[in-house]
Structures are given as C-alpha cells and as structure tokens.
C-alpha cells in the first residue's frame, strides 16, 4: 500500500465488505480438514466478529461515521492482530477489496490522531528513532555478528550485493549465526558482497505495521536514498520482515535503483547456477513454515493511480485496470526448491502453506503488546507442524523463529527442532554437522 493513503481513502472498501467471513478461513477450496480450516490467529482466539478482518473493517467504518469512540476497546481489537494478511488472501480470492491495507490505514489513523499505538509499542518506536534498531541497543552493536569476518564495508567500498542482516538477526545473540552463515556461504560461492556494518539502518518495518506511517515514510525514504547514493544494485537479506517491507512497501515511497531479494531466493539462484553445491546428505524429515513477510506480504508493490467508475449501473471498474496483490506471488518456491535439492532431506508439508499459511503470531506488534496471544498462535502452528511427523520445523524469519521457538520450548513440538533455512544449507554444503 501507499503509506500516504488515509483511512478515508478506503471508505468504499469498508462499505463493500459483505460480511461473508471468508477472511476467517483459508481459501475455501484449500480446506483439507476441520482442524486446519482457519487462517486468522485473532478470530481463532478471540471469537468475536470484531477480531476478524471484516469486523475490523466494520469498526473502521463505525469510527469514521462517528458510531463508536476511539477507545481502549478499539485499540485492543486493532492491535490484537498480527497483520499477517491471511485474511487478505482469502478475501481477494473472490473480491477486489483491500482488507489488509484498510487495517494498516486504521492503525495509521489511530496513530495520527494520537490514540495509538499501545504504550508497549512506544519503546520500539523510540528505539528506532534513537538507535536505528528495534532492540534498544547502541548502534555500534549492529556489526557485532560480523566481528572477525573479512568482508567489504559498502560505506567505503563497492560490491555487487549488499547483505542486509536486519536488526533482529544482528542483535539477538542466539540468531546471529544466521547472518554469519549466510554471508559465509555467499562469500564461499564467490559473490561480490559487502555489508554496512554498524551503519546498517533499521528497515522501519515495525513502524509501518504499528501504524506510525509518517516515521516510516521518513525512514524508508532515507534508506532508499542511502542505497541509491551508494550505488547498490542488489540488496539481499535474511530477514523476512526487512525483505517484505522493502519489496512490498518501499517502492511506494521513493524510486529504488536497486533490487531486493531474500537470501532464500538468492541462494536458490546460486544453487541453480551451480555456485552453491548441496552435496552433503541431511537425513531428516522437515516441514517449512512460510513467514508472512517472505510470503504473501512480500509480493511486489503495484502502483496504481487511476479512477473508479461504474458501468452497467452498478459494476465497479477501474481506469486503468487495477491489479491486486493477492498474496500468491510471494516467495514460496525458492526455499522449497533448495530444501528438495538437499540430498536425503524429506520435505513434508503442513495443511496451511504458502499464501494461506497460518501465521506464527509474532507480527504487527503483537509479540510486544500481547505476548500470550502471540504464543497461542505459535502453539497452533507448532502443533500443525508436529502433525506432519517432521523432525525439524524450518523457517526463514527471525520473528517467526523467536516466537515458534518459545512454543517449542514448552514441549509442544515433542522432539521437533527449530532450524533456520540457512542451517540446513550450511550442513548440505559441508559447513556443519546438524547437531
């Protein structure tokens, strides 16, 4: 979406919702059983209609029409939502509406009115402003993960590819292996790659999802300008959040002279080209969790600047025709292709995958403000993963890993382990034992 859009811009979408409840389910044709038919972590837990996308759209309309006050009840409903976009996929199978954009616009509206976000979100926003990361860590800590590594700093040198580690992978001690190993594999493959070290900025994804769109615009524009000025042509990141925001939202902010790829796609490309060789067997049955920001929310931004008109008395058409992001063009095949190419590895799929994957529950500021809600969603996902009989749950997002990891630590997954995509690539390239 264009972050400049206001809630009022979505009034027609709000009014055209037909209360069909499709947003609660995965696309109906994809339902395989009663256990895994739901797509929305919020309505699955809270049950009142207000918590589904349709219900939140009704709330937004009620707010615009002065039927309800912007009070704590509204904040509770609006922010107990991981903004995963599952609703958007299911709605758009049949309708040309923008439920997810409307939800983001509702958050932005509340922030601009001084009502949102929640107090729990304030430290995140403050940290982004003050430290350029979401974890309230000094800027200098941002390159700690790369200590001892010989790699170009793109502030001083140029390279074909910028490896963008992202705040969470850079600063969470138990996740630092991911950027380190990814970069190691890229270097090993002969990629001309560099990093920004302690000057790597925050992508500002949390500001967007929480609803501070003014700050997001400012930060995203600064980042785009920085990358353009440095002459960067390709950004590769391991963080689904950074990738999703750069791919799906940055293009609305300012012209980008660079391409953005998630590491899974780049590695898949290198495997295809034979520059990364997956030779070591990994005898393991795994299942793959599609992160929302790598999947449905990473679909490239499609600009549209046209007008709506009615033909045949009531049929709404757009001039020029408007293309909708229906979530199906996210990154789904690349990680699976790599996993399937690893000798000995068996990939077992969960019931809800790809564009209709069930969210881990961590996004949208939920983990910060409603940790129990986030954990409940993760438990649901871990339980689904466990039903595949997999020995490991694999994903490619630091937020998913942290939240799913918490659910696994409770013992919900039995003996199932949690792995990052890169952990398996590392083993398959002979870089680790898998223990």
């Amino acid at each position, binding site marked *: 979406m264009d972050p400049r859009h206001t809630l009022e811009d979505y009034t*027609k979408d709000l*009014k*055209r*919702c*037909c*209360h*069909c*409840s*499709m947003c609660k*389910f995965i*696309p*109906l*044709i*994809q*339902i*395989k*059983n*009663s256990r895994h*038919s739901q797509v929305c972590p919020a309505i699955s837990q809270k*049950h*009142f*209609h*207000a918590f589904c996308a*349709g*219900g939140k759209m*009704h*709330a937004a*309309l*009620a707010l615009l029409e002065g*039927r*309800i*006050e912007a*009070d704590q*009840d*509204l904040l509770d*409903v609006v922010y107990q939502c991981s903004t995963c976009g599952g609703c958007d*996929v299911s709605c*758009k*199978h*049949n*309708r*040309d509406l923008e439920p997810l954009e409307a939800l983001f616009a509702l958050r932005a509206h509340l922030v601009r009115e001084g009502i949102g976000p929640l107090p729990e979100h304030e430290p995140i926003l403050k940290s982004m402003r003050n430290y350029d990361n979401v974890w309230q860590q000094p800027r200098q800590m941002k390159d700690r993960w790369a200590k001892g590594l010989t790699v170009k700093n793109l502030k001083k040198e140029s390279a074909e590819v910028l490896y963008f580690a992202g705040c969470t992978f850079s600063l969470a001690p138990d996740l630092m292996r991911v950027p380190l190993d990814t970069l190691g594999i890229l270097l090993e493959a002969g990629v001309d790659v560099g990093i920004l070290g302690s000057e790597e900025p925050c992508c500002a994804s949390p500001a967007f999802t929480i609803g501070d769109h003014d700050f997001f615009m400012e930060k995203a524009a600064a980042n785009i300008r920085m990358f353009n000025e440095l002459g960067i042509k390709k950004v590769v990141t391991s963080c689904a959040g950074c990738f999703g925001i750069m791919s799906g939202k940055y293009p609305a902010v300012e012209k980008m002279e660079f391409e953005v790829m998630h590491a899974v796609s780049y590695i898949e490309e290198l495997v295809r080209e034979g520059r990364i060789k997956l030779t070591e067997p990994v005898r393991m049955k795994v299942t793959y969790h599609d992160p929302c920001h790598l999947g449905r929310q990473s679909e490239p931004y499609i600009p549209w600047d046209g007008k709506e008109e*009615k*033909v*045949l*008395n*009531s*049929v*709404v*058409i*757009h001039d020029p*025709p408007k293309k909708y992001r*229906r*979530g*199906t*063009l996210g990154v789904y095949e690349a990680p699976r292709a790599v996993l399937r190419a690893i000798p000995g590895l068996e990939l077992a799929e969960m019931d809800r995958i790809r*564009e209709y994957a069930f969210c881990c529950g961590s996004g949208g500021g939920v983990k910060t403000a409603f940790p129990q809600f986030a954990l409940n969603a993760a438990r649901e996902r871990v339980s689904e993963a466990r039903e595949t009989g997999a020995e490991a749950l694999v994903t490619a997002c630091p937020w998913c890993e942290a939240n799913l990891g918490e659910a696994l630590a409770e013992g919900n997954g039995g003996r199932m382990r949690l792995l990052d995509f890169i952990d398996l690539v590392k083993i398959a390239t002979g870089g680790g034992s898998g223990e």
Partner: protein
Amino acid sequence: MNSEEAYRALEEIVGPDHISRSPLVMDSYTFQFNADNMTGTNWGPFRPWAVILPASTEEVQAIVKACNEYDVPFKAFSTGWAIMAAPSCEGCLQIDLRRMNNVIEINEDNMYAVVEPYVACAVLQAEAMRRGLNCHIHGAGSNASILASATSVCGQGATGVSTSHSNRNLLGVEWVTPAGEVLQLGSAGQNGEWFTGDGPGPSLRGAMRGFLGALGGIGVFTRCAVKLYPWYGPVEPEVEGISPDYYLEELDRFAGFQVALKDWESFADFCYKLGEAEIAFTACRNAPVVTLAAMVDSNEAFYELWQAGVMQEIPYSMTVIIDAGSDREFEYRLRVFHDLVDSCKGVILFASRIKPSYLKYHLRLLNWLRQRLGAVGAARKLARFIPPFSRIIREKGMDHFARTLTSAMIKGHMQSRAIFRFGGSFITSFGALETIDNAIAGAKAGIEVKLPYIEKGYLMEDTGDNAWGTLYEQGALMHLEEVAAYDPSDPVAAKGAAEFMGDTIIASRDRHLGFCFCGFSEVGHGLLSEDTSNYRRWLAEIKRAFDPQDVSDGGYYISEGKREVAAGPFGLTEYEEK
C-alpha cells in the same frame, strides 16, 4: 428487561471473555449485507444489546433460560451472513455460535454427519471427502454453515440434482426451544442415532423449519445431522493454479460441460431428460452474467467480454458435471449425456475434455447467432468477443473455463465472486421448489419484473436474466431464483432493490409461481398468506406454542408478540402493492 443483573447472569454462564457489550463489538454484528435495503446504510436497524459466545448446548440452554427469566430477546446465528442473522428488535442478545464448531460424527455406514452450528460446508465437505462421501453445499457458498441451511433457512445448491437440498437433507436435530427445553428430534430423540429426522422419535421438522425455515426466530439449533452422498473423486483433491484462479486437479471420471440450448423450451426439454437419465452430479443454471463473472478475474475483464454482446445471445445454458463410480458407468453416462445434448439440439460451449467432434456444436452455435443477429451482426459481435476471449485462453489455457466452473460447482467457493464483486451486494427472489416448467416461468417473470428497475438505474444491467438455480433429486424439482446485483453504497439503488423484491413477491403470488423465498417477515406474509391457505395463522400458532414469552427474536420470521420489530428484512415497510 435488559439489566445489569441479566448481564451478570449471562456472564456467569460463559465467563467474562465470552460476552461483550462494547459498542465496537456490537457494531461488527450490526453491519450486515442487505441492511442497506432497510436503513440505506451498512448498519441494520438495531445494534445488539450484547453478544454472547456459548461453547455447548448446556450453555445455550442456560442462556435461553436466562433470557426468559430476564425478558431479554435473543437472536442466534451460526456463520451469520445477511441481515436476517442480526437482531430485528431493540435490546436483543446476539448469540454467536462460533465456538460450537465441531464435526461430531461422520457415520460412513449410514451416510450422514452430525455437526454443530459453526461447521462451514467447506469443512464438512473436506472431512466427508476423506471418507468417500460428499455433502450438499447450498447456494450461499461453502463458507456458510451447513446446520443453518439445514435447520433454519432454505438451502438450495449447485449439486442438487445428486445431493438434494438442505431442507430435505436434514435428519436428526438437537433444538433448544425458545422456552429453554432441549429437544432431540427424529431418531436422535428415540435412540441417540441421527439417521432420520422423522420417526422413530418425534418429528417436528414441519414446525421447526417447514419450507423456508424460521431464520433464527424459533430458538437455537445446536446440533443436526445431514445426509451425505457418494463422492467418486480423490479423498483430498489437489488444488492447482494461483489465486484468483484456483482449480481442482483434473478428476478421474468427472467431466464438466457448459451446455447451451436454443430457447427456454428446449432448455426445459433438456432438463427433464437429464433428470430422468440420472447421470448428472451437477445440473446448474448460471445466467450468462454469472457464468462470465466466475470465469474472469476482474470486473474490467468481465465488462470487456460482456460488451461484446455474445454471451447475452446464449442465455439458455447449464453447467453439467457427469461423474461415475466406475469407468464403464462413466462411459455410459457420457454417451447418454451427449445423446441428450444432440436430441435437444444443444451446443457444448466448452468442456473439461474437448473432442474434435465438438466442432459440430460450434457450427450450430454460429448458425444460431446468424439466425438471431444476421451474418453481419453476428460477425461484428464475434469480432469484438474473440480477441479478449482468446487472450484469456492463451494466458490461462484451453480448459480454464471448464475447470473454473467445474471446481466452483463442486467446492462452492466462488459465490462471492459471481455476485458481490460486481457492485458490492445483491438481492434475490422467486426460488420456489417447483416443476421445471414453473421454475422457468419464474425466470421469465423475473426478467419482466426486473427490467424497469434496471432502466431506473437501480439494479445492474444484466439483460434482466440472472436466474440461478438447479435441478433437484434427478429432476423431480427445480428452483430458479432471480438475482439482482446493485451497489449498496447507493441508498437510492438499495431502496430500489427492496421495491423490486416486493414486486417479485406479488409476481410469484399472482402468477402462481410457488412460494417466493423472500416472502418472509410480516410484509412477506401480508402479501402472500391470504392466497396460500392463510399459512401465517399456522406460523403464529407455532411461534406462540414454542415461545410463550416471545423471547426468540422473530422479526424476520413472524411477529406474534409484544415486541416492536423491524418490518424488513428488505425495508418493505414502505412498500405499496402497485
């Protein structure tokens, strides 16, 4: 009387997390489609007093008893789609049955399933298919509750020729009456088995639902059994394509066809013969406007093809799916089907498996167009139609149209697209379960009644013909309902749609077209009852007998008590018979 005391009593039943009276939560239930016909806005006439989320029959019973004790009217819904699910009176407790979402049992031997209210058709179908069975999916679509359709509102759907309709598929029932008694009807009340809705055990199907259902106005149905039918496809059909073009994999021993007939008479002839042959899984009439909408991925693509004017020239068409349990039977059924098409001088417009011999159909179609439009007229329209049509074929494949329609008929997952995507809302009428000829008479009347409303700009310009319906029970019955799309954000159009609805009720009465299925609520009864055995009196007696305190909000069923209720559901308070 709504009071703090009542709220506390209800809260004690379900716990504080499962009851709310926050205006925000209430408004998410006040917003309903077709509310615009009553209020000119997206909001129904009454915001609930509170919403409650029971998790069991025991909780529902306790809630209903509390409502009787504190004189709180209540309205329950399952998946809750359309204004009839919302309160029709002030101070109403909305019972949202979402937490009751279990498939209790699938009895493979006796071919039935026992479900709770929030089991959507898509969910039951997926579970049934895993056992080689299938359920009837009513016209609302597979997102809607199968229990609601079976117990509380008429439920006709695309596969009716082989899976009957929800009214008839209802077997045993568990019913919390408005007075708070729990009744188990049919065999469920006799020995705990659910295989029949009538004896052994008490049968109250006529009283609890009849043809139309009580639309939530006569207590709460907490469980029911529905009949299941054989499914010859795979236990978990693969889904191919990407949104918005999801398809089922090509299924062995399934073949989908779009058949066109030359006129209504040959259409009727084809329907009778197809039913008698007992070979079809689906025999569903989609008007050109809906057929086209289902096959394209945007209103823009729809408009481009519609403007060519070709589809409008082949309106007498039907989507037919042939299935079979063995290769030999499949071969036989296909042979019979092709013989029927030929004997009725029909045309196979497209099919999941196209044969070179189908060229004869295309030549026949060209001949029809030439006869209707003249050679030049036909050529002009085709010249406009073929480029965008070919573009879709190039992008999506030759079998795109047949696969889309076949998947939609089997899975019932695209109803919203075919109707709501046009302008945002729709309204529907006629729809009696009748003989094929009388159903077609209804379709013709629908066009006649609708055209003035199209001319006024209220309803979508669809030529007037948007009669949707199917054969039932191998052609014993048919229903064709007249669908009209409109823009709900235009209050004038919404009001016009309501007036159209009133006219259709009159037309169905005066032309003897059977019971119009929008003829509910006081306005509907007022227009219909006198000429139809004064059925309103019987409904009133039933309502009084089961709901002595008038707590089960019956505004969309029958108003027979002390409460002032909305006259709707289509804002017909101001309707005057012309």
